[in-house]
């Protein structure tokens, strides 16, 4: 079969939107079930500490390096520019894969290498095994390769009597302890030095220090020397396959990579097709991004370029692996994931990853990219549990050096899982109700009337009121959810009942308007409407005090975010259409200039998620309609600064009284900073417009843990992220915690209430409204 035919055969088994057609993938041996991996991860205190300590220092050094390079060499060397270049090179390689493979093969073969194309894990394993058998090789030394983990090469060889020794320190320790790497770059980040000392003592039969890392590192040099000198084969991965010359590029730090590829008489390179790059120039761009993204170091110690065997008698075999990659390539969305350079930045930055580690947050590949590629390499089922851990904070996309839209690909995986496994009944029920505006209205009003036993008339559903119900079977998990975070009460009068004539859309047009008068159509979002009408009133108050006319289409309803976020596309699409139709009509009837929304989660749904959704479902006319609307939609914070302040419409504000003025700390909602790129706007409002003191908290832009339904599905994670966030807020000594997204505010308020913390939690609009003279 030619490569093209292989690709077609693989495409036939593409993991497309019809789930259940996913290829049957052999289960990875010894992989504990997800629930068990999750439990272990949650309990591993040492690991959390290690990951939480690493994250901030990594972020800092990574950013400092990129900034320094841009300052020195100009904007062509900024992170944005480099990532654009690498992305383009990778996209070219993916688009022209057949030509690139042909070129690579031709060049590598001319240089004396043997290139073998393996369609599956089995084919790759068998090729390598046969090679050992033919040559009578019984000992193999390996340098770090994720692809070998993907195909379980060690296991395959060992079952057939061939010993494979990992020579990378972390991989070796993991191998000795019968574990898999929990991180693609730092395989044993989950282990303490004491644990490493124990593993090494057990393996060598000598007492190795539990404290002295240098002594532990020295062990590997001694232990491996003999293996290097006697092994018949060295196996490595590849960081890039450079097509123009048939060269394999390898980045390593420890020095074992060069020994594995140099000393034994046979060198096998194991690499996916995704490692192809057109030219050396592209490889330099990758080098500039890889180490900085991975560990925040400028460059790895060794970057090796191998072009065929270096001496007579030496053999170089390059195994190109498909194993689901052509299915990925055939998928217009998932082919973007083939750009990955395995830097693990998407794991380093991921808040839930820090809480559970890579064994749970992923399968063989971990971190955000692990959730995305696992269905293709190891089946949809293998991704089902791990994908549920993503809180859709979008942080990973901001650091990915090849700009893979990871969060939305994870949602795609989620919707495939939801379609194939079905949603839990509770979610089905909730989304069913959400999708029916009248029923939803009725039920929330009934709930507001009937909630007294749970709220006792306060704005919170509190654990102490619910304790009584804890013993009722079925209610227990719900009751326990309020133990660490009180839930909000439904408002007796939702915002829609408080808007008066603003619901009369046509009036805005009829009454005639001054030329400089602006009309704003206010989209509140269901959380503001039903739970926090006072936030909505603050928004309306500000807009009107600025002389704007505000209309509130009463037909507005939930934008569908909860359903879309849970992978429930059926309800999600219906709600998206409903919302687009409603907004078009409102603009039409009222002649409004802008649609303003003070929930950045809803804004992102309206201007980003709908587009993706309609594009994906090929609903061209809906796509066009949404695009037309999107230009008119603005989040409240930007609107305040770019329109109200910039056009000097904001009236004089009360100046804070010195001495008694509150000190503010600001939480960046993920949707605000990661999706809308808002980082300075709210701060400008607090400092410059209101004249208040703002004290930055640590990690102000790290997720608070709300993450939509994740906080219900994985409350342990949501609780920990919330705890961290509130701790950081308190450390500043501020009395006010401000944000601009009701979802976060609900989560933060609930945490403050449940633990009686001395913080007031406000929407930015509420803060501004307090200073209207």
């Amino acid at each position: 079969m030619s490569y093209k035919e292989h690709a077609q055969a693989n495409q036939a088994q593409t993991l497309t939107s019809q789930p259940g057609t996913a290829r049957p993938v052999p289960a990875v041996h010894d992989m504990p079930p997800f629930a068990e991996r999750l439990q272990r991860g949650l309990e591993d205190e040492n690991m959390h500490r290690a990951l939480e300590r690493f994250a901030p220092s990594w972020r800092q050094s990574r950013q400092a390096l990129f900034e320094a390079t841009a300052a020195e060499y100009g904007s062509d060397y900024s992170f944005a520019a480099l990532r654009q270049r690498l992305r383009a090179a990778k996209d070219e390689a993916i688009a022209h894969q057949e030509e690139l493979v042909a070129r690579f093969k031709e060049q590598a073969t001319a240089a004396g290498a043997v290139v073998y194309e393996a369609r599956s894990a089995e084919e790759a394993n068998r090729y390598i095994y046969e090679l050992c058998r033919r040559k009578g090789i019984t000992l193999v030394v390996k340098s770090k390769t994720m692809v070998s983990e993907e195909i379980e090469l060690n296991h395959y060889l060992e079952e057939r009597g061939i010993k494979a020794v990992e020579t990378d320190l972390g991989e070796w320790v993991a191998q000795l302890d019968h574990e898999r790497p929990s991180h693609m770059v730092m395989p044993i980040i989950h282990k303490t030095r004491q644990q490493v000392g124990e593993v090494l003592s057990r393996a060598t039969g000598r007492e190795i220090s539990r404290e002295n890392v240098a002594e532990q590192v020295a062990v590997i040099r001694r232990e491996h020397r003999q293996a290097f000198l006697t092994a018949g084969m060295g196996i490595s991965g590849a960081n890039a396959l450079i097509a123009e010359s048939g060269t394999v590029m390898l980045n390593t730090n420890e020095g074992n990579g060069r020994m594995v590829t140099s000393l034994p008489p046979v060198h096998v390179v194991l690499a996916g097709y995704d490692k192809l790059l057109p030219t050396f120039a592209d490889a330099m761009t990758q080098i500039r991004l890889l180490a900085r993204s991975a560990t925040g170091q400028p460059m790895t110690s060794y970057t090796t370029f191998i072009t065929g065997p270096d001496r007579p008698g030496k053999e170089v075999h390059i195994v190109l692996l498909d194993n689901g990659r052509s299915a990925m390539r055939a998928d217009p969305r998932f082919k973007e994931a083939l750009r990955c350079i395995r830097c693990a930045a998407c794991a380093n930055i991921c808040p839930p990853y820090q809480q559970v580690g890579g064994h749970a947050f992923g399968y063989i590949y971990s971190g955000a990219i692990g959730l995305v590629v696992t269905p293709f390499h190891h089946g949809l089922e293998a991704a089902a549990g791990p994908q549920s851990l993503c809180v859709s904070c979008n942080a990973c996309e901001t650091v990915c050096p090849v700009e893979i839209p990871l969060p939305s690909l994870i949602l795609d995986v989620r919707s495939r899982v939801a379609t194939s496994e079905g949603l839990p009944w509770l979610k089905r029920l909730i989304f069913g109700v959400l999708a029916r505006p009248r029923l939803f209205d009725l039920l929330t009003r009934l709930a507001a009337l009937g909630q007294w036993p749970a709220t006792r008339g306060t704005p919170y559903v509190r654990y102490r009121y619910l304790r009584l119900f804890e013993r009722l079977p079925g209610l227990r998990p719900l009751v326990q959810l309020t133990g660490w975070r009180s839930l909000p009460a439904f408002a007796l009068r939702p915002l829609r009942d408080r808007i008066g004539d603003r619901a009369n859309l046509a009036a805005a047009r009829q009454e005639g308007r001054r030329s400089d008068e602006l009309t704003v159509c206010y989209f509140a979002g269901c959380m503001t409407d039903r739970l926090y009408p006072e936030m909505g009133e603050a928004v309306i108050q500000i807009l009107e005090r600025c002389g704007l006319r505000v209309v509130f289409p009463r037909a507005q309803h939930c934008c569908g975010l909860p359903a879309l976020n849970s992978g429930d596309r059926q309800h999600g699409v219906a709600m998206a259409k409903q919302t687009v139709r409603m907004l078009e009509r409102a603009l039409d009837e009222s002649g409004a200039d802008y649609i303003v929304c003070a929930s950045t989660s809803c804004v992102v749904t309206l201007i980003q998620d709908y587009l993706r959704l309609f594009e994906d479902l090929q609903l061209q006319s809906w796509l066009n309609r949404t695009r037309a609307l999107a230009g008119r939609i603005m989040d409240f914070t930007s609107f305040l600064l770019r329109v109200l302040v910039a056009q000097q419409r904001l009236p004089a504000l009360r100046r804070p009284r010195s001495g008694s003025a509150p000190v503010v700390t600001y939480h960046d909602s993920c949707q605000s900073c990661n999706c809308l790129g808002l980082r300075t706007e709210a701060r400008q409002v607090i400092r410059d417009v209101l004249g208040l003191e703002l004290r930055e908290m640590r990690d102000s832009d790290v997720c608070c843990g709300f993450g939509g339904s994740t906080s219900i599905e994985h409350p342990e994670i949501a609780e920990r992220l919330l705890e961290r966030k509130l701790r950081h807020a308190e450390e500043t000594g501020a009395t006010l915690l401000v944000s601009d997204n009701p979802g976060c505010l609900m989560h933060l308020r609930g945490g403050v209430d449940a633990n009686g913390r001395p913080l007031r939690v406000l929407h930015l609009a509420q803060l501004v409204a307090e200073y209207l003279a």
Partner: protein
Amino acid sequence: MNSSALFAQFQSRLSAAGGVAHWAEDLAQAAEIIATHPALAEQRLIIPPAFAACQPWGALLPLLSARGIRLEEATIPERVADAPAGLSCASLAIAETGSVFLADNALAARIVGMLTLTHFVLVSAGQLVPLLDEAATLLQTLTRPGPQQQHYISLVTGPSRTADIERTLTIGVQGPRALCVIVVATPASDPSLSREEVKDRDNEL
């Protein structure tokens, strides 16, 4: 950028990677730096085979021998492993990253930089370049098919290191524990051969 500014940049990048860079005006100074280095306490230095014939560096060997240093040509890995010091020469030094560019098909030459404990690398000032992009150009040239094709090229940036255990940085894992790069202003014993000519000639390789 003039070569002293370029060298300063190279030096700071290399030192950030845990290596050391020295400037030497000529081979005599280079010999002095090597001979007085603590790694030469045993006065033993591993050199790649045929180093004596290698222009312009071969002329360094008599200077080292004159200081009582025993020069050993690298042969098989067993004999080179954990030797206290080794010497190689590089085709480029890259200021952007503090890397040296080593190209050698012969395994015996490469193990000097793989297995000794302190690795000295010589490079002429004319081969000190600002950006990685020049490495890409040279890679293209050297990997071109033909009898001159270089099959094994490394960019070396500092000594071998790991941070696998608790993110604690440890220098010297499987490879050298120290990397010492000596940038020589005028390596040619024949002073009529200017720096630029050295660069041109090397690029023609």
